[in-house]
Every structure is written in C-alpha cells, then in structure tokens.
C-alpha cells in the first residue's frame, strides 16, 4: 500500500536497483538512513530486483514509508493489463529498433527514447506482442546494423556481433520495455538511486506527469559498468553491448534529472565529464553516527579490511600487500571481513587459491560477514582498502569514526575523504600500499595521530545529521512542499 498523501507532506517515490530493502550493503544503509531520518516526507519504495520471488525485506520500514510494488527484471511476469485488449492491438513494430538506436547508439536521441518508453507504459500488453513479431525483429536488426556502422572518433569502431549476441540484446531491450511498462504511483518527487535500470520507470513518470527527478549516485553507474565489462571474460560483442547499454541508460538519467546528488566530489567530476550540467550537481556526502569519545588503536598489529569479496575491491592486491607487510613486520595479522558478492564466487575462490600460493594463510584470514563492523574496526591497528573503484566508502568513514588510521587506494572519493588523515597510495601499487601499512604498524604514534585527525574530520564533515540536513533541504525544494521547522 502506498502511503496516502497527507496535507503539507510530500510523497517521494524512491526507486532502488538490487539494493534496499532486499539486500544489505552501503547503498541500502544509506536508503535506510534517509527514509528513517526524514520523517517529513512520505516515502514510496519501488525496488527493481532480478526477478527473484519471495524476497524478504531486510529493513523494517518506518510508518511513513511503504513498498509500492516491485519490478522483476528477468521473470516471465507481465505488467498489469490496463486497457481493453483490442486497444492494445495497435502495435509499434519499430519499438525495439527505436530502443536500440537510442540506448545503444553513440548519439541516441533522448526524445525518441522517451516517446518509445511512454508508449510501453500506455500499452503494457502490447510490449510482448510487439517483441514477438517477425517484423519488429527485422527492423531491430536493421537498426542494430546502423548503430554498428556509426562512425565517431570517441566511439571507436564497433566489434562484429553474431546472431546470438543480437538475440540476447533483443531480449535485454525487451526487459527495458517491460520495466517502462510497469505503472508508478502518484507522487510529488522521483528519487532514483542509480543511473541504470532504476531510471527507466522514473523517465516515463516524469515525461507523463512532469514530476521532478533527483538522481543520487553512490558510484558512477556507467563507470562501474565499464569496469565490470573490462574485467569480464565476455566476448567483445557482449562487452560492447553491456557497456553501451549502461551508457545509454546513464545518459538518459543525466538528461532527465533535475538534480544529481553524488556522494563525493570525485563522482561529481565524472558526472561533469560525462556531460551533466554543473548547475544540476549538488554533492551530499554520506554520513555516519560517530562515537563521542576517541580511543587509541590497541597496538595488536592487526590490519582489518571490511567489504565484499569482489574484483572491484582488488582483494588479490591486498593478499600481495599482506605478504609484503608480513615480511617487513613479522607479527602483522590481516583480517578480511565480508562475503563474496553474489555471482563473484569464482573470484573469491581465486583469491583463496592465491592466498595458498603466497602462503599467507597463517596471517591472512577471510572472516566472512559481520553484523558489528564497529567492533571489528575498533579492534584494528590499521584499516586497509585496496579498491580500484569507490564512491564514498562507508568502511573508511567507519574506521575514521572509530579513530583508526586508514591506508586506502586513491580512487573515487577516497582522497577527498582521507585528506590529511590517512595514507593514499595508487591503486594496484603493492609496494606503495605495503609501505603505507608497515609505516603505520611500526610507528604507533603516527597511527594514533592520523586516527585522531580522522575522528575529528568525521565529526566535522561526515555526520548523519549533515547528510540528512542536505537531503531535507534538497528534497523539500524539489518537492515544493514547505517543511516543518
């Protein structure tokens, strides 16, 4: 049930993608903080999931929030019929062709994309019928050939695709059309939490009702999609299509959004580089609840890392760093807290094999999930992060809030957060990272000093209150409803 509109209270439709309220993680925690902390609004949650049934809600929703539906991406479920069947029969055979031109083409036309997506919403039952038609498939192939023949120095030459890749893209485009067809409830503001699939229902809603749209990016969606594609064993064709699709969705999100709220200045730089009007960007940092009192590191030579086991975290570099540090500081021990990302079990296996090859099992342990990251971090002398892509990592804020010194690679918002209170080596540089860690382990005074600085910086710049105040102001402005003092 959607919360009914109450006088002077704005309704906000938050669209999530693979996160809140069905999965734990940084983005979900942020959603929870926002929804629980901003009681001035009525929150309508529309999660997009991978079509998994009986998804349990892992967060307890406050009374002013409700899940208003769920979009399943890969299931066979069809959107609700909203018109008489004969009215739905008027097909739009060019629909798949229009979507491939606008989403995969290097210079897709935003207006044409919106027009196609809105058609899907108005004729939900027509979507499947169109995509199953022979003529639609022929037009799609023609449009795909045109897209592949595009010439643009920035785009580079397109790889050759085969029939299987074309059919797979056709299916993916169908899922996008189906996502666009799902109805959205009446609302006063659209809040999209990723510039990917979550954008699709918001684009249609905005086009139909003129509702304002806010986009929050924790990472930069298109950047992460390119990184994932670059490292995947997929064929060139598949890689090309996946990354182009992510780019198409992000472009649409950036064009449609009235405001973009990245969590760090580093993301804002990407967004500006990707063509977002700087006037539309407002950085709002993540916030954390920090203890009032600071405590010194325990002096146990323990190095802790908290995060998923994922290629983006570059755990293999961390293992090599551990080997190097242990050579320099023989008593050093490492703990990695966090489960493998779903679908990255093979990577986790490869990490464990590497640990065996390097002989680090004695002093490097994979600890699994933790429900108490505060005490895990508090029990460390140094907190380490070797990621190759980050937004504004909560695990670093956590370490700083506990007064622990941090060594973290200089990606995303890390240099900005750790400014003057941590060591920031380049990503993948085993020697530099190991030097940072061993320096702090050998010099407890320096470690304590950096920890204190981090603690103070969190209290100054990254509190939950500052984060909530930032959003309260922005959301209130966009929703156009005066907020209670």
């Amino acid at each position: 049930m959607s919360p009914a509109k109450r006088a002077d209270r704005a309704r906000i439709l938050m669209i999530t993608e693979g996160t809140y309220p069905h999965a734990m993680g940084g983005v979900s925690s942020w959603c929870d903080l926002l929804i629980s902390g901003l009681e001035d609004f009525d929150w309508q949650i529309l999660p997009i999931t991978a079509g998994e049934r009986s998804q349990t809600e892992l967060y307890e929703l406050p009374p002013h929030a409700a899940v208003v539906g769920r979009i399943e991406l890969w299931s066979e479920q069809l959107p609700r019929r909203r018109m008489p069947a004969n009215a739905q029969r008027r097909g739009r055979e060019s629909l798949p062709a229009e979507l491939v031109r606008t989403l995969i083409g290097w210079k897709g036309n935003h207006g044409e994309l919106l027009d196609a997506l809105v058609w899907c919403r108005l004729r939900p039952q027509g979507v499947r019928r169109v995509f199953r038609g022979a003529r639609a498939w022929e037009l799609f192939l023609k449009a795909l050939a045109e897209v592949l023949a595009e010439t643009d120095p920035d785009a580079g030459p397109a790889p050759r695709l085969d029939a299987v890749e074309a059919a797979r893209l056709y299916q993916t485009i169908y899922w996008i059309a189906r996502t666009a067809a799902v109805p959205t409830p009446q609302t006063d503001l659209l809040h999209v939490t990723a510039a990917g699939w979550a954008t699709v229902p918001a684009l249609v809603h905005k086009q139909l009702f003129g509702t304002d749209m806010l986009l929050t990016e924790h990472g930069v969606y298109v950047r992460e999609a390119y990184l994932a594609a670059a490292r995947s064993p997929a064929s060139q064709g598949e890689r090309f299509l996946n990354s182009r699709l992510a780019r198409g969705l992000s472009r649409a999100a950036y064009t449609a959004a009235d405001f973009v709220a990245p969590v760090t200045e580093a993301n804002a730089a990407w967004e500006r580089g990707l063509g977002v009007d700087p006037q539309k960007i407002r950085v709002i940092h993540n916030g954390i609840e920090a203890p009032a009192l600071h405590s010194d590191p325990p002096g146990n030579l323990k190095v802790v890392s908290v995060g998923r086991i994922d290629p983006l975290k570059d755990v293999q570099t961390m293992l090599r760093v551990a080997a190097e540090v242990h050579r320099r500081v023989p008593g050093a021990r490492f703990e990695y807290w966090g489960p493998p990302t779903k679908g990255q079990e093979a990577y986790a296996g490869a990490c464990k094999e590497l640990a065996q090859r390097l002989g680090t099992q004695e002093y490097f342990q994979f600890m699994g999930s933790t429900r108490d990251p505060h005490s895990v971090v508090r029990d460390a002398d140094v907190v380490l992060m070797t990621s190759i892509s980050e937004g504004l990592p909560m695990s670093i804020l956590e370490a700083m809030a506990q007064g622990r010194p941090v060594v973290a690679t200089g990606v995303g918002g890390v240099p900005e957060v750790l400014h003057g209170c941590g060591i920031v080596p380049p990503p993948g540089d085993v020697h530099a990272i190991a030097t940072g860690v061993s320096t702090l382990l050998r010099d407890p005074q320096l470690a304590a000093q950096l920890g204190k600085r981090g603690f103070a910086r969190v209290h100054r710049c990254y509190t939950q209150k500052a984060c909530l105040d930032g959003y309260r102001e922005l959301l209130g402005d966009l929703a156009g409803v005066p907020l209670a003092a």
Partner: protein
Amino acid sequence: MSPNGNRTDPPAAGSHEPQHAAGVIEARLGRGAQDVLEAAVVLEAWGGVRATRALSLGSHVVPPKPPRWLPSRLTGEEPERRESILSEALALLMAILAVASWAGPLSRQVGASVLEQAIVIALPATLAFQWAIRSRYLSRRDGLACLARDRLPLLGAGLLALTALVTFMGRSGGLAAIFVTIWVGGTILARRGWALPYGLLLLGTLIGLESGRDAYAWLGGLTAIVLIAGLTAVWTGGGQSQEPAGRVGRALWAGAIGAALGCLLVGDPSLGWGVHGAYPGIALLPSVIGSVWGGYHLWKLYDALPRGLQGMAPNEGDERDPRGSAMKVFLGSLLRLVGTTVVLSGLVILIGQWTSGTNRLSLFVGFGCVALVTMLVNMLESLALVRWALFAALAGVATELSCSEVLLVHPPVPGMALIAGAGVGILLSLPPLLKLLLRPGRVLATNLWIQ
C-alpha cells in the same frame, strides 16, 4: 570531445601522455580501448589518473580498428533440466503401466463401466494438472522449490477439485480422484528422485488387487501414502532457491492444452478404456516410450539453437535454413519418436497372447499419432504459441468426437476416430512449427528468449 560531446583539453604538443596512456590500457586489457569511456575508466582505476584528465586523455587513445573478432560465449546446457524431464516421463510410464495392470482386477471389483468412466475423467484431469504444474513450476531448474512456495494454495485448490469430482461424479468420480492423486503425485515424487519407491508402491498395489483384496481400501491407502510422500517431497526438496515461477495465465493455458490432449486419448469409445482390460494401456506403451525419447532429445533445442547460431552474422541467422540447428533437433526428435513407436508396436503385436483382441494395427497407429501431436503441441507451447497449441489440440478433439458419433455403430477399425482427431491436430500444428524452425535466428530471439 567528451563522451557526451563537450570539448576537452587536448594534451600538450609533443606530449608523450597519450602514448603512455595507450600503453597502460594495452597492459591492463591486453587490447586497445573499446571507446573513450573505457579508456578513461582504465586510466583512472589502474593508471592513477584523475577522472577529468582520464576523460580528456581517453579520446586520444581509442584505436581506429576494431579488436580481433571472437564469437559469443554460451553457458553450458543445463543437464538437470533434461534429467527432470526424464524423471517426469518415467512417472508417466509407470502410471500407464499401472492403468494396464490394474484394469483387469479393478474392472472385476468395481465394474467395467465405472472403471471406464473413471479413466475417461482421470486421464484428461491428470494431464491438465501435469501440464499446468510443469509450465509454472517443474520446467524451472529449481522446480520443486518454486512449487514449495505455493504449496498451501495449491494443496487447497487440488483438494477442492478432487472433492468436486467425488461429490458430483459418484463412484467413478471417487475412483478418478484417486487416479489423479496417484498419477500427479507420481510426477512430483519422480521429480524428487523417488521414482523407484513410487514404482514399488504401484507394484504392491497390483499384488493386492490381484489377490482379491478390497480395491477401494488398497487404492485409498496408496492415495494417502502418495499424498503424504508428495507433500514431504515438496516440503523437503525445495531448498532456498529464489528462481521465479512461471506466469499463472500461461500455466492455465498449458493446463487446458493438457486436458485437451487427455480428451483426445479417451474420446474414442472404440478404444475400450476399462472395458478391454490391460489392452489399451499396453497398446499405448510403445508410443509413450517413443515420445519420452523424442521429447528428451527435443530439450537439446534450448542449447543447440544458440550454439548453431554462434559466429553467424545476425542477418545470416535470420535467413531460411532447412538444415539449421533447430530443424536438425526437430527431425532428430521426430525420428526417435516414430522409429521407437514403430519398432515397439511391432514387438507388442508379435507377442500375440498379450494383445489378443487389440492387435489391430490401427490402435497402435492411433496412439502413435497422439504421441506425435503431443510432441508438436508441446513444442508450440514451449515456444509460447499457446493459443495455437490449444487450438490444434481442441480441433483434434472436436474431430475425434464428431467421427466417434458417425462411426459409433460400425467403426471400420478400432481407434479410427482417434487417428482422425490426432491427424487433424498434426496437420494444424506442423506448419506453424516448421515456419518458425526454418528461421533459427528469429525463433531464438522472438520465441525462445521472449516467453
């Protein structure tokens, strides 16, 4: 230019930065960058270059030629899906053997007309349930887990349907309800991997019936055991899978198709279900074994179709190809079905004492035609042409019933109406299927992958 068309700063004249950047990309990816964005992302993540500079450099390092071409990658076939089909077919075979072997003692105890009516009700009802359950649940990789999620409403609906049978159809309805429970339960038990104990239960019941024990007591006991075992199988075999179930609407269509095929099997009174003892069941056996083998082979379509299209240009894959992978799999299934049915039917006819009274070729031809129309209709359904599949099956039933009316007094040979009905079903389902399978690229994109 930036990825979105904004101007970016070029590198200083004479700068080696672009060459260095290209080197970093080549070292990290083992190839040139796909486009300016990939270049920028790699330079930032592994080259330590800040986003703005990386985006600006990216446009200077995109290679002019596409990378060396490699065909698409496919994940392997899912053997467990084919295994599940095999186990369900095994359950069907056992059910038919049970019909054949129980017919004699049952007709002696409950009366031939009651038994005939029970089978006429039970076969279509069973096939309807089996097709619906398969469409929504059991055709999934984690079929039992999907089924387990809806177990209570399903159990309620099933019990309601069976109660209606008992209430409105009297003794034959009660017997039909027992058959339906045993056969549908068998499908679930076989899917759980409990086919052997299920087979032993059926055998034990045969021994009980042959020894003259009370038929209702024995069958009632078996029904209770199968029901409890079926519930246990669903409760314990589900696991934690979150695979989505199929659409309810689609399952209802599939159920209707199953019911129509069941009606085709029992619509010709000259077959003598329940009247001619074991004979109709025995005559059905060769074609069922043939369709099991044919159907098992047909599951290769999901794997063979994309594999046959790998490396083919999209337009090339859309051309008519009578020797394409889809046609090959289809013809392979057809040969298996027809060949097995012909050979085994010949064998059964040769064993004269077993089939005396029904050793007419027409009966075996009729059941062979039903097996063929079942396979064709099944293919249409799996390619999501459900309306056409149902139309073909219903047209077959209508033809069979009309012929039965005409030939009721003096049928020239037993099973004539069945042959006519199944023949119409084949004629209606074959052309659209061939039309689809001739274009493998199109059928993959518009039928197989968009359900």
